[in-house]
Structures are given as C-alpha cells and as structure tokens.
C-alpha cells in the first residue's frame, strides 16, 4: 500500500533520486537536479522560501482562527478576547498568526532586496520580477486587510489612516476608498469586505501567483547565478544539440533549462540536497514563529471607538514611512512618490537591460543601480523609523528617549 502512495521508497540510487522529485506532486515543481550555486545559503539566504513558509503558517493558523472569529463589529472584539482566554491554544495560534504576518512582510521585502542586489531580475527573469512585485503588493494587502479584523482601537485607526492615504490618489482615489470601505466610513461594511478579501480573495490570488512565480523560477533556469559558468545561453542552434540527451519540445524553444549533462560537476540531485535544506529551513522558521508566539502576545487595545482617536493615529509599520511622507504633502508624499516607486519597481527589468553582474551580490558593474536602490531603501527605512519612533501627538516631533509628560487621564 505504501507503494501506491509513495511511488519511490527512500532513494538508494541516482535514478531513484530523480524519481523522488518527478513522481511526487508536492516536489515535482522542483527540478530533479539543481545547480550547486543555488544551494549556497549565503547567496539567496533562503528568503523566498522563508516568505513561502511564513505564508503556509499563516494559512494554517488563519484557517483555524476562522473557526472562532466573527466579522461583525459587535462580536469581532469579543471573539478576540475569547481566543485569548477561553479557547485552547487560542492565544498561541493568534500570536503565531500575527508575528508570522509581520515577518512575512519583512521577509518579502528582504527577498525583493536580495533579488535586486544579485541582479536576478534581468533577462530571462524579467516577468518573474514583475510577478514578485505583484506578490509584494498582495502581501501588503493581506497584512492590511487582516489588520482591521480585531476591531480594536489599533485596528480601526490604522485602517482609517491607511484608507485615507489611498483616498488621496487623483480621480480614482476616492472611488477606491469607497469600494474598499463599502461606504464613506470605516464600519460593518468595511469589516465584511476586508474579511472577504483577507480570507479568500487575496490568499487565492496570492497562491496562484506563487505557483506561477515558482514555475517561472524553474522555467527561467533555476535561481540566478554568475555567468562565468557560461551555461545560460540564448538559443541552441539546432545543429548543435548534444547527442547524449533527448530534449522535450519546451526545452528546444528556450535553451534556459539547466543543461543536464553539460556541467555535471556543478549539479547535484535535489533529493536530498535541496529538499533536506528546505526541510531544515522550515523547521527553523517554525521554531522562530513558535518562540515569538509563546513569549510575546499580539497587541489588543480597547474596543474600537470612532469618537476617540488615539493621538497620534498610526498606520501599520510598513505604511508609516508613507504616513510620514503624507504629513509633508498628501499629494506628492502620498500619491506621487509611492506611485513612482511602484512603477519604477515594475518597470525595472525593462529599463535595466544590461546583463552584467547577474548572480553576484553588489557586483561592481552595477554600482549605479545598486547605489540608487540602496539610497531609496535607506530613505524608506529612515522615514519608517521617523514615523514609528519620532512622531507623537498631532504628528509632532518627539524624542523617544525623553519621558512623555505625565498624562493625567482617568486611568
């Protein structure tokens, strides 16, 4: 019976190692053999995989949480309290979900940086970069829609700020805001829509895009690597096909699949080299998420009160840089600059066609591109830090190391 499920036992021969990959549904999106360079931890840092694992953890914990959460303004907050106090493992699962979400936004950003710095967006991987930027936006969308669901002060006002920023876009801004909120205010309609987006629409779109993203990695010849090995070619002239391999049609059309048999010493079997590393990485990610979930609780503030905004009301951390921009100018800061940045990201591989420096970190040939990117990155980080720590009531400048004046509130 085992044979009917697992067609190949623990591989003992090279043939079996190949078959382990090709005959398995879960594994077959990965090639039977990978280039050694792709396995280098220092090259890719596993950032894409980490993002994927975090996504799986989020799906798993998210589905479980759906059995208790109710997307109603009367009940949502109470279900959060019930998860914390009454449901077995409720607190840990909720914490896992929250920390994995923040980590995923972070790691998707890091993955984007890695791909940029290694020039891995260049030909033939241009479109995969575009899908990647799309995935980045999906991740932000997932995090943003999920942020509202607890319906506490933190959630309510962060979404109020975030959707207001969206509303600044010319012509379409107010319409998009109206669609998102299901009206003019952040209320029950908003909660319903955000819930639908968060649990089904965005995850489905993201999963589909992830599938294409991984497929493209395969079809584009695996992870990017330095050109010296000389095994990325444009086309193989028909007369020069090696005779020791029979090619499928797709491999004839674009000669970018790993040329098996061309550089045998550079390739290793995915089973076990790739797969085992992937398992280890998953264990590491799971350990980190569990650790954070056990020792730090996700925040839950007071029940959402539309009459009493906190001062200041802040967007989620990944939008705080944006909120800082907006504080200078709603149009230029909130619409033009982010719009330009996203457009620049999307067009990047079609603007930068120079194939030099692919497969290496901080290649000197790409000094200009790397510098521009680093500048933008640093600016984003600085503004996010300012928005997080240096902005206090009325968005005024505060120094976080100074004690705030004693607030003589009633509590």
């Amino acid at each position: 019976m085992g044979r009917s499920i697992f067609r190949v036992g623990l591989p003992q021969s090279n043939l079996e190692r190949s078959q382990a990959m090709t005959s398995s549904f879960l594994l077959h999106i990965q090639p039977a053999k990978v280039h050694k360079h792709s396995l280098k931890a220092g090259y890719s840092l596993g950032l894409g995989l980490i993002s994927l694992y975090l996504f799986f953890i989020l799906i798993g914990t998210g589905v479980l949480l759906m059995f208790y959460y109710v997307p109603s303004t009367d009940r949502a907050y109470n279900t959060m309290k019930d998860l914390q106090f009454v449901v077995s493992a409720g607190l840990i699962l909720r914490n896992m979900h929250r920390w994995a979400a923040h980590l995923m936004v972070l790691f998707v950003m890091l993955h984007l940086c890695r791909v940029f710095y290694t020039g891995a967006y260049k030909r033939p991987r241009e479109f995969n970069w575009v899908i990647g930027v799309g995935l980045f936006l999906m991740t932000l969308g997932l995090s943003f829609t999920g942020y509202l669901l607890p319906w506490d002060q933190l959630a309510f006002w962060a979404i109020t700020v975030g959707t207001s920023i969206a509303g600044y876009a010319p012509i379409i801004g107010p319409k998009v805001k109206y669609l998102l909120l299901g009206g003019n205010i952040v209320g029950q309609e908003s909660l319903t829509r955000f819930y639908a987006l968060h649990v089904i629409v965005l995850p489905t779109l993201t999963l589909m895009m992830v599938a294409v993203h991984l497929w493209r990695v395969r079809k584009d010849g695996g992870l990017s690597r330095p050109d010296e090995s000389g095994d990325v070619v444009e086309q193989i002239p028909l007369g020069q096909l090696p005779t020791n391999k029979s090619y499928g049609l797709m491999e004839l059309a674009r000669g970018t699949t790993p040329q098996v048999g061309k550089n045998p010493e550079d390739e290793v079997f995915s089973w076990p080299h790739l797969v085992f590393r992937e398992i280890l990485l998953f264990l590491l990610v799971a350990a980190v998420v569990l650790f954070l979930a056990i020792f730090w609780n996700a925040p839950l503030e007071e029940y959402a009160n539309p009459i009493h905004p906190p001062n200041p009301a802040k967007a989620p951390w990944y939008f705080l840089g944006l909120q800082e921009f907006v504080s200078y100018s709603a149009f230029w800061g909130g619409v033009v600059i982010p719009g330009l940045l996203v457009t620049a990201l999307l067009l990047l591989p079609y603007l930068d066609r120079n194939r030099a420096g692919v497969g290496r970190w901080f290649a000197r040939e790409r000094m200009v591109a790397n510098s521009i990117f680093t500048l933008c990155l640093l600016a984003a980080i600085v503004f996010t830090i300012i928005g997080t720590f240096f902005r206090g009531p009325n968005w005024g400048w505060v120094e976080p190391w100074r004690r705030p004046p004693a607030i003589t509130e009633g509590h």
Partner: protein
Amino acid sequence: MNHSPAQDPNDVSRRGFLQLTLGWLAGTFAIAASAAGAVRFLVPNVLFEPSQLFKAGKAEDYPDGSVTFLEAERVFLVRQGNTYRCLSAICTHLGCTVDRADHGYHCPCHGSVFDDQGSVKGGPAPRGLAWFQVALSKDNRLLVDKSRTVPADKYLVLPTKV
C-alpha cells in the same frame, strides 16, 4: 565503536544514527503534537447557548397538584405534594411544543398524545416525553438539569414545609 567511512555512503555511524532517530522523533512528535493541538483548539470550551442547567424559582412558588409551563425553557414543572418533577415539553416526534390537556399532554402539530407520566398514548411520537433531573440549589431554588434525563419515578422530595 566508530568505523571509518565504509564504501556505501549511506552508512552512518552509531552516533549519527542516534542523532538521526532523535531528530526524526522530535520532528514527528512536533507534527503530531501540532495536529493534536489543532484538533483540541477546535473543541469548544464554552458554549454560547442558553444553559441546560437553570433555576425554576422557589419550591413555594408552585401550588400543590400544579403543572406549570415554563415557556422559555420548554418544560413543565409538576408538583405533587412534596415531590417536584420536570417534564420536557418537546414532542419526541418532530420537536413541537406540546400543550397541557386535562389529563396528560397533547401535541398540536401531528396529534401525539401523552399521559401524565409522559408515556405515548397515541399519535406518531416514537417514545415518551423525557423527565429531567430536579435538585435543590445552594440558594434554595429548584435546579433543573436538562442534560440529565431521569426515569419517570425519580423526583425531588422536599421536607414538608410549604
């Protein structure tokens, strides 16, 4: 005793084997425990339905020989002398609320008829009405537990006082 690496690269030393087994055990345990945890998570610890356990007021509130219908709980509180019993008012046929007749009970939906003991006397009901456990709470109220059915001859007897 550690051999030098054998020809077959799949050989592992004893220590490696131990490590491997430990790792697999821990990993499998983690997966199994997580699955068990997920299942336990799904089992509700509290219910948001009205409780099956409720207080039916003081014993003195019910006159001798009375059958009182408690609408919210869909039960009849029956008092005979010093004995107190509680009969379900939910017809065993399809769940309608039965009415009190001169003797016994009658279901308006499909005509089931029950006698004073709750047994079926006619109609489509498959079995008699259930009797629920009646006890006395710490603050001297009649305590009915709809999750516990008792035989028709089990009832709460209170010392003669009322």
